[in-house]
């Protein structure tokens, strides 16, 4: 965020932009900015019912004691395989499902699930874009009405909401004159996802949760939408939680990345640290499973064997120990906690090594320092004080 210019460029969205303004303006003091969204010990276990009495026979530990925070103006990427709990986390953050435990703080204020008015306000400031561009639009409503719906719920008059919808159409690159009266089935996938983004922006949120928002799109269209998302973030001073299974896309988009495995955070840190100095064996495996894109240097050996275990009653201890080549007795017994990476102190992300990601105009020279550099890993082998100390693979 390079300060005031962007705020003005945001035009109609000055309110949202100002939210990130102080942080953007105070460039180097970024790390002191309080998180926009903070989550402690978030937990959601789904019961698995079975038998003739429909009793609970097992639990899916979809999200298990997850801690995370998102600073204003940053993009936090969440990666992981299916069943790792990333989508459940998104829905918990939006309060679309009720958490079993955990504290969610938005902009310094605790969000209470019972406080309807408070929840409404938080939901206004925090919006979500879903994966399936089709099922997230009402097929019987012209897309204009879909976009007007949110503002109208919040008491904006129909006329003003319509005006706003037109602005949003232009903002996401759709010509209002052509599109407003169309129905979702009259649009292509990319256009529908643009409409979904416009709908999410209609309430002038400060935080967008993008749950696999580009995963269903064709590659050529995915690039358009990613460009749009970055342009919107820059112009409107938005903060993103970007959830995807595609590591390339997460690397491209995110300032910090959080890796999940079976409902647990296994590693979190600045993008460069995660992609170049990954510590957790799972992160490492995930990254080496990425296709090589080079016909002369094809992948020769799969980084992991077997499938991810069933999230129903996950293994005790470190959940990854069943597939980990470093697994030890302690891994089978004790659950590792997130701890700073060995020998990295607190500032892995900062000290000059972020060059590849630093200096680019997108982060405005601010994003990097902003991360505060905490690279944490939940592994007995890799964290400070584990007493092990295997060299990173």
């Amino acid at each position: 965020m390079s300060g005031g210019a962007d705020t003005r460029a945001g035009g109609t969205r000055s309110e949202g932009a100002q939210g990130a303004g102080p942080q953007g303006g105070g460039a180097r003091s970024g790390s002191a900015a309080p998180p926009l969204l903070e989550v402690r010990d978030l937990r959601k276990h789904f019961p698995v019912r079975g038998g003739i009495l429909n009793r609970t026979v097992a639990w899916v530990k979809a999200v298990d004691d997850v801690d995370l925070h998102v600073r204003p103006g940053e993009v936090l990427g969440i990666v992981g395989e299916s069943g790792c709990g990333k989508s459940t986390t998104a829905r918990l953050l939006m309060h679309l499902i009720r958490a079993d435990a955990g504290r969610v703080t938005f902009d310094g204020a605790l969000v209470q699930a019972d406080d309807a008015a408070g929840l409404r306000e938080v939901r206004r400031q925090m919006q979500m874009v879903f994966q399936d561009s089709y099922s997230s639009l009402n097929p019987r409503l012209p897309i204009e009405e879909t976009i007007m719906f949110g503002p109208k719920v919040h008491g904006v008059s129909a006329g003003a909401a319509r005006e706003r919808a037109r602005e949003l159409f232009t903002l996401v690159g759709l010509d209002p004159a052509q599109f407003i009266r169309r129905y979702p089935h009259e649009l292509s996938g990319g256009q529908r996802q643009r409409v979904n983004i416009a709908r999410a922006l209609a309430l002038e949120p400060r935080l967008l949760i993008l749950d696999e928002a580009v995963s269903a799109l064709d590659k050529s269209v995915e690039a358009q939408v990613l460009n749009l998302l970055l342009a919107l973030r820059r112009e409107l001073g938005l903060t993103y939680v970007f959830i995807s299974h595609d590591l390339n896309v997460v690397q491209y988009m995110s300032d910090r990345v959080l890796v999940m495995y079976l409902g647990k955070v296994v590693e979190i840190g600045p993008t460069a640290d995660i992609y170049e100095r990954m510590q957790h064996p799972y992160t490492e495996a995930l990254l080496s499973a990425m296709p090589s894109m080079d016909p002369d240097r094809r992948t020769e050996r799969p980084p992991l064997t077997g499938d991810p275990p069933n999230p129903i009653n996950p293994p005790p201890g470190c959940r990854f120990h069943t597939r980990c080549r470093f697994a030890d007795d302690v891994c089978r017994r004790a659950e590792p906690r997130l701890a700073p990476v060995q020998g990295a102190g607190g500032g892995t992300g900062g000290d000059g090594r972020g060059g590849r990601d630093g200096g680019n105009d997108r982060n405005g020279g601010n994003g990097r320092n902003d991360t505060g550099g905490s690279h944490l890993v939940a592994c007995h082998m890799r964290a400070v004080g584990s007493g092990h100390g295997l060299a990173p693979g």
Partner: protein
Amino acid sequence: MHNPAHAGTARSPLVRAEDVTVRFESRDATVQAVNSVSFTLDPGEVLCILGESGSGKSVTLRALMRLLPPRRSFLTGRIEIGGRDVLAMSERALADLRGTEVGMIFQEPMVAFDPVYSVGRQITETIVRHEGVGRPEATRRALDLLERVRIPSPARRLRAYPHELSGGMRQRAMIALALSCRPSLLLADEPTTALDATVQIQILLLLRELQRELGMAVIFVTHDVGVAVEIADRIAVMYGGRFVETGPVGQIMRDPRHPYTRGLLTSTVHGSLRGTLLEAIPGSPPDMTRLPPGCAFAPRCRYAEPRCEAPPPAVDLSPRHMVRCVRAA
């Protein structure tokens, strides 16, 4: 491909497709799914058909085995597999071909298996039916196949029902089923798309290894450039129901000539592009119910010119590299 007798191969091709055209008709519209696709495939060769949703890649694959809904689809052209005319075959001969010479794997393994029989039984049945060997021999072969596709504790898994296996295991079991009669051609329709990255790479490597060991030819349909690079010898890029560029994988990756292929490669996101603007292809994929008569990509192409309104010529840049674009001529 367009140039049947390519340099130095005296062998006759395993698959020869000429002007394959598929049309779907429904009460509201006609979809021109595949428009005059021609190619040949040598024994032991891996061809990837790369294209986005709706490009006609899966339909092309299904057309080879005439696996299209009978009343709504219209298939014309010429398809030969192992020298036999597929379009002239009786249903029975076709069923026989599907089980023996040609194996198929799909994105969703559950479609290949009958949920009420165990995996082992289905593989065994296939072997007995197509090869006429005894049941004990077939069971032994089935066990061997499961081992081959690296299913842990195969003897136990033989007795398992399809729904009892995890996603990756099911995919492996389906591969075993497809290989049960030692096909010379394997047709694969996005078999790794629904899988997680760590499982996808395992399946790809397995397929590559089996292909090499068994000397099978493979036609592999995917939308993912990364997957194509891992497995293909040759890539055919499909757009608007046409092959717009075909060539060896290295050539396509290093020197793509069709504007669409280039756009596809530049818009495939790499982390290393961080901080730069992605070079996206503007616009949306074509509406297959009203394709333009000329180049289907022209409306999105930055180099489009008046000539593009006529059907683009197939230009052979080398014996193995074809581009369908006026600018290549």
